[in-house]
């Protein structure tokens, strides 16, 4: 029953979404406002229909209607309720419905938010968003229907892969989707502005808000993904340059570039074409990413079924590229800047350089990700590109960006004189020099020359950026204290409140500095495979590890075999750690238990100690453990928190948050 209803809802959504497109465009072309209004209402109606379809699928999942193929494949009777809910995005078909649902939530909000303003843009925004929605509805109906039933009755399902039964499954995919799908809204505003030829500075304000929201969720999604990989997957890292990870990182880079260059457009009325291109690119990259990962065209650890969904994406992507860049070329005259850059040493130029480097980074990653496909087309041989490529390209690019993070905010608009530069850079440089010297003296042990250089530069730049941010705050606070006679805390809070975009942005930058510190720690990573017999003790760097024994425990769902390790750090008792192998019993009779690794991590601000139990000999209890020391990893998560906090400060609605366009 619910599956039939779900099907009906999706088909109805197809009709209503089509209606929304036709009415909006017709209304706009013939200046009949009631048609536009009708189109707008149709967006909300589509939203309600899609919501109903989602509810229908959730009912199927929760009530265990296993003759629905999707329910059978991704749930079973014994699964906890949260994972049954999360099974909505656990498989291909459901995740496409979930994608559509998020798109409808965004569309409904965007249409609601602009119902009284930007009347000229709105019908086209509706048309673009509903076209994207229509694409997903088409996919759901013709290629990936989650309500597909099987011709026979089944009492139980296969269940969600145990590797995915983790609380990250509940939060990581939704936030990533929120980020991915969110890029559709700025795209819709950009395209609408081009169709309506309203290319003044109004559209960019709307676009910036929505890009910021999408960027916010994309950042969280990526951080959660990194954290999931680190805590659960057992290879001791948080980022592997896997195509699926890259697909989520590329739009983040282009969106970050846009968030910066939008400021120049608002301030100086420049870079309009470039900004429009970035908005289009960010959206296209989400589509490219989805196409790459769902078509099976690139091989990834995240295995995706070979399905024809990829072909649909390919066609849709082609249409999007043609239409958006066609429009862009058509509107080039209206997008011409009214200002020119005055000097190479100015904030504008810092922003422009930052933009180029961001886009360069996105290109470099895209190139590496696509290389196997391209080489197969061109030379007939598939050639893969590994992490060494990404690391050696991205480290210098990242360092340039880090430098610009500190340079941009302290260099003046338009033009800086040598005296101004000296004044701004004196204090930061006074801090940077001793840092570099200390780093050179104390951090020499890290491998080759290049690594040492990078580590040194990275740490110096982190200090540089940090000092510039503190100075920016300090000057603002000192000024308020002098003029308004405020105490420190009041001055700080009012300073942030007075220009949240600027000071919130600096908090994000602090987050970036902390992230870079965390990345730099990777240069000092130590990794070793240890073979241990029961009661054996071994030294691993400054840790003494004693292996006691293997301890098995089991319940109806799984058997856990954990190795008990007592650890001393610098000869002081430190931790009892229990890395384990877990065998999940399959709900399918006769199918082997699915093994998985349970990591043991002892975290500290300086370094994490990390154990993964690789194998054990059941007879004599000999074990192989991967031991990893991950220095400064905690800074990544702390940096992530700052990044989120700063974004919230910027996004918080209110008089001088998003709406105001000042950026002094």
């Amino acid at each position, binding site marked *: 029953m619910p599956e039939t209803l779900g099907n009906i809802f999706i088909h109805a959504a197809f009709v209503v979404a089509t209606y929304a497109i036709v009415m909006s465009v017709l209304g706009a072309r013939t200046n009949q406002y009631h048609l536009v209004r009708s189109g707008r209402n149709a967006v909300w109606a589509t939203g309600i229909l899609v919501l109903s379809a989602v509810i229908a699928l959730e009912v199927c999942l929760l009530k265990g209607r296993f003759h629905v193929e999707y329910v*059978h494949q*991704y749930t079973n009777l014994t699964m906890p309720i949260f994972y049954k809910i999360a099974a909505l*995005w656990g*498989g*291909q078909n459901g*995740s496409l419905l979930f994608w559509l649902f998020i798109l409808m939530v965004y569309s409904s909000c965007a249409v609601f938010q602009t119902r009284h303003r930007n009347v000229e843009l709105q019908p086209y925004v509706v048309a673009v968003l509903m076209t994207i929605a229509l694409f997903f509805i088409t996919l759901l109906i013709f290629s990936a229907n989650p309500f597909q039933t*099987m011709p026979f*009755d*089944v*009492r*139980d399902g296969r269940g969600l*892969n145990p*590797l*995915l039964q983790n609380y990250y499954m509940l939060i990581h*995919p939704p936030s990533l989707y929120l980020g991915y799908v969110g890029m559709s809204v700025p795209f819709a505003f950009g395209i609408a502005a081009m169709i309506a030829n309203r290319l003044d500075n109004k559209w960019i304000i709307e676009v910036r808000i929505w890009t910021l929201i999408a960027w916010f969720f994309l950042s969280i999604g990526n951080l959660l993904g990194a954290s999931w990989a680190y805590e659960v997957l*057992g290879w001791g890292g948080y980022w592997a340059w896997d195509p699926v990870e890259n697909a989520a990182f590329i739009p983040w880079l282009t969106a970050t570039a846009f968030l910066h260059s939008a400021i120049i457009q608002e301030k100086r009325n420049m870079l309009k074409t470039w900004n429009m291109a970035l908005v289009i690119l960010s959206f296209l990259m989400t589509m490219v990413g989805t196409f790459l990962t769902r078509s099976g065209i690139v*091989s990834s*650890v995240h*295995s*995706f*079924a070979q*399905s024809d969904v990829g072909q649909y994406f390919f066609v849709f992507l082609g249409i999007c590229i043609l239409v958006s860049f066609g429009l862009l070329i058509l509107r080039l005259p209206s997008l011409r800047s009214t200002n*020119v850059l*005055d*000097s*190479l040493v100015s904030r504008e*130029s810092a922003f422009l350089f930052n933009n*180029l*480097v961001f886009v*360069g*980074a996105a*290109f470099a990653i895209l190139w590496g990700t696509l290389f*196997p496909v391209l080489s197969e087309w061109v030379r007939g*041989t*598939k*050639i*893969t*590109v*590994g*992490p*060494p*490529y990404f690391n*050696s*390209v991205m480290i210098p*690019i990242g360092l340039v960006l880090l430098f610009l993070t500190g340079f941009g905010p302290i260099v003046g608009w338009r033009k800086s004189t040598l005296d101004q530069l000296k004044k701004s850079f004196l204090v930061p440089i006074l801090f940077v020099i001793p840092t570099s010297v200390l780093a050179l003296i104390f951090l020499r042990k890290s491998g080759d020359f290049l690594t040492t250089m990078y580590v040194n530069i990275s740490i110096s730049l982190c200090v540089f950026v940090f000092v510039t941010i503190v100075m920016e705050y300090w000057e603002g606070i000192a000024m308020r204290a002098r003029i308004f006679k405020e105490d420190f805390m009041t001055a700080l809070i009012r300073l942030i409140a007075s220009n949240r975009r600027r000071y919130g942005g600096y908090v994000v930058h602090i987050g970036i500095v902390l992230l870079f510190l965390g990345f730099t720690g990777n240069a000092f990573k130590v990794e070793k*495979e240890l*073979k241990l017999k029961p009661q054996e003790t071994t030294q691993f760097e400054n840790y003494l590890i004693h292996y006691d024994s293997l301890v098995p425990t089991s319940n109806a769902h799984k058997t856990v075999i954990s190795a008990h390790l007592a650890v001393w750090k610098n000869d002081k008792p430190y931790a009892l750690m229990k890395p384990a192998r877990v065998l999940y019993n399959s709900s*399918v*009779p*006769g*199918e*082997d238990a699915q*093994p998985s*690794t349970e990591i043991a991590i002892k975290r500290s601000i300086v370094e994490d100690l990390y154990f*993964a139990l*690789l*194998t054990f*000999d059941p007879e004599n209890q*000999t074990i*192989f453990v991967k031991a990893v020391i991950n220095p400064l990893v905690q800074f990544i998560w702390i940096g992530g928190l700052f990044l989120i906090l700063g974004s919230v400060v910027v996004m918080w609605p209110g008089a001088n948050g998003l709406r105001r366009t000042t950026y002094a």
Partner: protein
Amino acid sequence: MKLKQTKWIIGLTFIVIGVFITVMSTLPKATQYYVTVDELMRDKDKYTNEDLKVAGKVVSDSIVKNDQAMTWTFQVENNNSTVDVFYKGAMPDTFKETADVVVTGRFDGQKHVIASSVLAKCASRYEEKLQPSYDIRKN
């Protein structure tokens, strides 16, 4: 005005070329052939003593594991071609018989690959189409 614009274009071109050179110069150092087992066996000479990635399916009953040394030998097949793989190290959780794997290693020119890493397709969210390998109706 003209002069400033030129200066700009030079500056920006510099960055673009910089990124481009970095990309192009790093690429050759980090690339590997990616072949399926049958492609490898068809063109043995080309791949002899090359570091490459070989994709295929683990042959049933071919896995031999030594818990003491943490070494593995197994066969990987694709389109009726088979190679023997030797591997020492940590195996991914998803490695099992008939699993799709990508083996990174060196090919000896005959039929052996000495592997430095094994990647098993994590049967993740987007799982293969329902396979009627067992009788669902019995459950």
